[in-house]
Structure formats: structure tokens, C-alpha cells
């Protein structure tokens, strides 16, 4: 094990929103990612980068207990949100996901109208108020209002891929979470849709904390304030590779003056 492993990573003096404390996530008996310490700052965009299989998506899904849906997945350590370990016995995962929303890799609008896609989350969370106004506000924030305002009654599936993804972001915004997790939200999109989503994220971070997993390093540079680099290494006696957090810092530092050699190799493309 390298000496980088247990190095606590902090982001200076900013108030942290989510803290991972010695988090190890396993699928069955196989450890996917090990010993992660991280403080994700509030109202900033934090990017997770790293090679495939290093566990960055697994860590992201752990932040709102999405991993509960995967059979055999278990977590050791603590994930602290709002002063509470979200994996504590008395915590309701449904409540966690209401306050920590998620946008997935593949756009997944519900097979309902655009309006209903947005209203669904609000309605099941007991929203009482002007639904039309909420729908408009959410669609505006996700930068898709102009394209959809005349066809709110049409199916969400009738939109293009990029529009669908922005609809999914609007859907996540509508329940007014504190954190939005994005798992490679642009990997299935064209460059123009990607650009729109990236611009939108700069607006969104005023009201939300955003955590994004991306394979695209330029994207991490463009959108994020903080970047964490994950890597994977083979373990003795183990069958597969185990992911770990190499370095977590200002995006600027990660890309220009990383502390670790592995980070340097990865961000400059000299990665094996």
C-alpha cells in the first residue's frame, strides 16, 4: 500500500457538505474502493476523475445510498451529511435521496409528459404550491425552458438525448435537494449539449453542491472547483484491482501542480 492512501484530504476552510470518513465499499467480499477520506465543500462543483474501474462511480452512488439497490454492496466507514452518518441504522434512505439528488449516465426520463416528469418528484414529496411555477422554474434552471415551453404535454421521450438529460437535471432540481450527484452526465451527449450542461452547472452551484463523475479531463477543468483523482491498484492475493483516492485538491492544483506522481501521470496523459 502506498503512503498516499490514508492521507486525509481537505479543501481548506470552506464549509463541507458531505464528508467521507474512512469509507470502504465492497461488492460481496470484493473491495471496490478502499479507505476514502474526503470533505466535499458546499456550493462548489467537485469532480471525480480516474481510470475505469477505480471506484469513482461507486463512491458517487454511495453518497445518496444508491448502492443499496445493488445486491451484495456494503459500505464500511462513515458518510456524514448534515451532521449525520447517512448509513446509520435510524436513517431513512428515501429521505437521504430526497436531499441528495442524482442524475445518471444515460438520460432516463419517465415515460410521461415533460410537465409530469418534473412534477413527479415534487408531488411525491408532498409539494403544495404552484406546480406550474415550479415546473417553469426547474426547466429554466436546467436551461431547457425555451425548448420545451410549448410542448409541456408531450412525452419526455420525444426530446433529443441532450434535451432529455437536461430534463433529468430539471427533474432532480425540482425536489430542491441540497446536493446533486451526476454520474458521467455528458458521456452520451454531443459536444453542444455537453457545453449547455456545463454552462448550466456554473449557475447551479450557486444553489446546490454538485458532485460529478467524468471521464473527460477537460470537462473536469471546465466545470469543477475541486477535483479528486482516484486510481486502482492490484492487491496481493486479490483477484481484481482495488480503487483508492490518490489526491483531492483545487482543480487548478490537481491539473497544474499535483502532489502525487500518479496524478501527474494521469492528468498529462502519461498513464499506463
Amino acid at each position, binding site marked *: 500500500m502506498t503512503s498516499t492512501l490514508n492521507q486525509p484530504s481537505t479543501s481548506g476552510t470552506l464549509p463541507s457538505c458531505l464528508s467521507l470518513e474512512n469509507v470502504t465499499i465492497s461488492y460481496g467480499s470484493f473491495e471496490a474502493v478502499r479507505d476514502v477520506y474526503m470533505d466535499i465543500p458546499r456550493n462548489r462543483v467537485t469532480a471525480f476523475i480516474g481510470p475505469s474501474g477505480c471506484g469513482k462511480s461507486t463512491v458517487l452512488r454511495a453518497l445518496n445510498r*444508491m448502492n443499496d*439497490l445493488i445486491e451484495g454492496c456494503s459500505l464500511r466507514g462513515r458518510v456524514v451529511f448534515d451532521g449525520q452518518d447517512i448509513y446509520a441504522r435510524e436513517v431513512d434512505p428515501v429521505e437521504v*435521496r430526497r436531499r441528495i439528488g442524482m442524475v445518471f449516465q444515460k438520460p432516463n426520463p*419517465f*415515460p410521461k409528459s415533460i410537465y409530469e416528469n418534473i412534477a*413527479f418528484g415534487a408531488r*411525491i414529496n408532498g409539494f403544495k404550491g404552484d406546480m406550474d411555477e415550479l415546473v417553469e422554474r426547474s426547466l429554466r434552471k436546467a436551461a431547457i425552458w425555451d425548448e420545451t415551453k410549448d410542448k409541456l404535454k408531450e412525452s419526455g421521450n420525444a426530446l433529443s438525448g441532450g434535451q432529455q438529460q437536461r430534463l433529468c437535471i430539471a427533474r432532480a432540481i425540482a425536489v430542491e*435537494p441540497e446536493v446533486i450527484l451526476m454520474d458521467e452526465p455528458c458521456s452520451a451527449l454531443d459536444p453542444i449539449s455537453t457545453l449547455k450542461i456545463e454552462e448550466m452547472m456554473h449557475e447551479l452551484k450557486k444553489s446546490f453542491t454538485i458532485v460529478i463523475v467524468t471521464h473527460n479531463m477537460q470537462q473536469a477543468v471546465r466545470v469543477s472547483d475541486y477535483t479528486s483523482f482516484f486510481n486502482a491498484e492490484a492487491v496481493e492475493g486479490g483477484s481484481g484491482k482495488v480503487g483508492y483516492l490518490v489526491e483531492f485538491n483545487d482543480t487548478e492544483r490537481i491539473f497544474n501542480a499535483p502532489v502525487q506522481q500518479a496524478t501527474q501521470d494521469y492528468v498529462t496523459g502519461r498513464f499506463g
Partner: protein
Amino acid sequence: MTLSTATLPSRSLRFNPGLKRNRTDRLFTAIAALFSLIAVLPLVLVLIYVLIQGGKLISISLFTQLPPAPGLEGGGIANAIIGTFLVTLVGSMIAIPVGVGGGIYLAEYARRGWFSQFIRLGNDILAGVPSIICGVFVYSAIVATRLFFGQSYTAMAGGIALAVLMLPTVIKTTDEALKLVPQELSWGAIGVGASKFVTITRITLPSAFTPMATGVVLAIARAAGETAPLIFTALFSPFWPEGLFNPIASMSVLIFNFAIMPYEAQNALAWAASFVLVILILGANLLARWIRRFTSS
């Protein structure tokens, strides 16, 4: 070294029907076509025969009158039509809630694990149980024990026998239909803070509605034509239905009884009932297709 001579003869691009591969191609196409013709022949013949034999007996009285006493002329099969609807309705009322509920449990709550594997296996075996055995089972469990108010043969017992028959189909189609719903869809709902119940009832079930409805309609259509489970559960009655807790007539049992009677009027009614039953089942299948097309557009 003379590399210039080609080892393969140069051929024209023109299609040559005399080539061996083209001749075998034609031969096997013809054989396949012949076998598929033979396969649909029984279906077409049965349909035509029933439509001709039964179709000419269609009249108003068929749908309004009771069957005649042996030796008399005329009459209809109104009681059997009502009976078939009633018994099938009872069967559906039991099999659809239980089957859909069981299918939801298998697909959404117990995806894996020995218990759900055991239920799936049991369900597949139940689907293969001959219908007459369903009838015997209900006979010994309900009819012979006089479970319902001391009555032996009842419409209710017939409905339960049909429900046993429909149950595996309904469970299986619900299970399969729900498993076809992409996981991302339910993740989306869970990601905005929906509980498991809300996710299933508001997102997963509506998405799986079409294949589920198709499966249920086909299960009903199959049950409506069953004879064996009804012979010793609902029995038969030459009279108007007297509620759910008395023997009741049904078209399939009427055909079974009347077709072998030595009276022409009864034989004719058996044909007419066959016609009505075939049309009903055909209609149900068309309805299932229509549901599929209507909801997918």
C-alpha cells in the same frame, strides 16, 4: 513462377439459377414453406368448419333462450353464455389480483434468493399441470367437502378452478413484463426521493402495463374455453344461473354434453356454442393485439 494465372475461375456477377447453392436454396425454401402450410392447416380447417357448422345456426333465440328438453326443437344457449362469463369473471377476480401481486413480489421484491427461485419453479410446474387435474383438485377440496353453504357443485368452485389455471400465466407475464422495464427508469424515480412503493406503482407498473394486459387477456381467453376443470366443479345446468353457489352452465361443458347426445337439436346447439366460443376467443386475442398496438403508438 507464374502468379498471374488465377487459381479460381473468374465468374460473371450475373445471378445463375442453375448453381448448386441456388438450387438447394430453392429446395429448402420450398420445404420450409410446405411445413408451415401444414402447420396452419388444422387451425384454418377447424376455424372454417366451426364457422360453417355453427355460423348457420346463429339466431336471436340462440342468445335469449334456454336449451330445449331432450327431443324438443329450437331453444338457445343463453344460460351457458352467461355462465361462461360469470365463471370466467370469478376466475379473473381471483387470479388477476393474486397473480399480479405475486408477479410484482417476484420481480421487484425478491429478485433472487432461494424462495423466489422456488416460487418460479413451482409456478412453471403449475403452468404445465393438465387442466383436468386442476378440476380434480378443486373437486376434492371444495366440491366434495361442500365448502360453500353445504353446496357441492357451484359456479364459485368452477371459477376457482379456472383461477388455478390462469394463475401461472398471470404471474409469469407480470414477472417477465416487470423485469423488462429498464432499471434506469426506477433509479430515476428513486433518485428523486421516491419510495419503493411509489416507484413500483407510479413508474414501473405503468411502464409494464402493455405486456401485462396482453398476458392477462390471453390467460382469460384460455380459461374461458376450458372444459375439464368445469365438468366436476361447476357441473352444468339446463336452467338460468341461480347465483354463484349453484351449479351453472357454461359453453364448453355444453359443447361436451350436447355434442354426444343422440338429438339433432342438441348437436346443433353444440355447434352454435362452438361458434360463439371461437369468436369470443378470437376477439380476446385481437383485443390483446390491439392493446399492444394502441399503447405502443
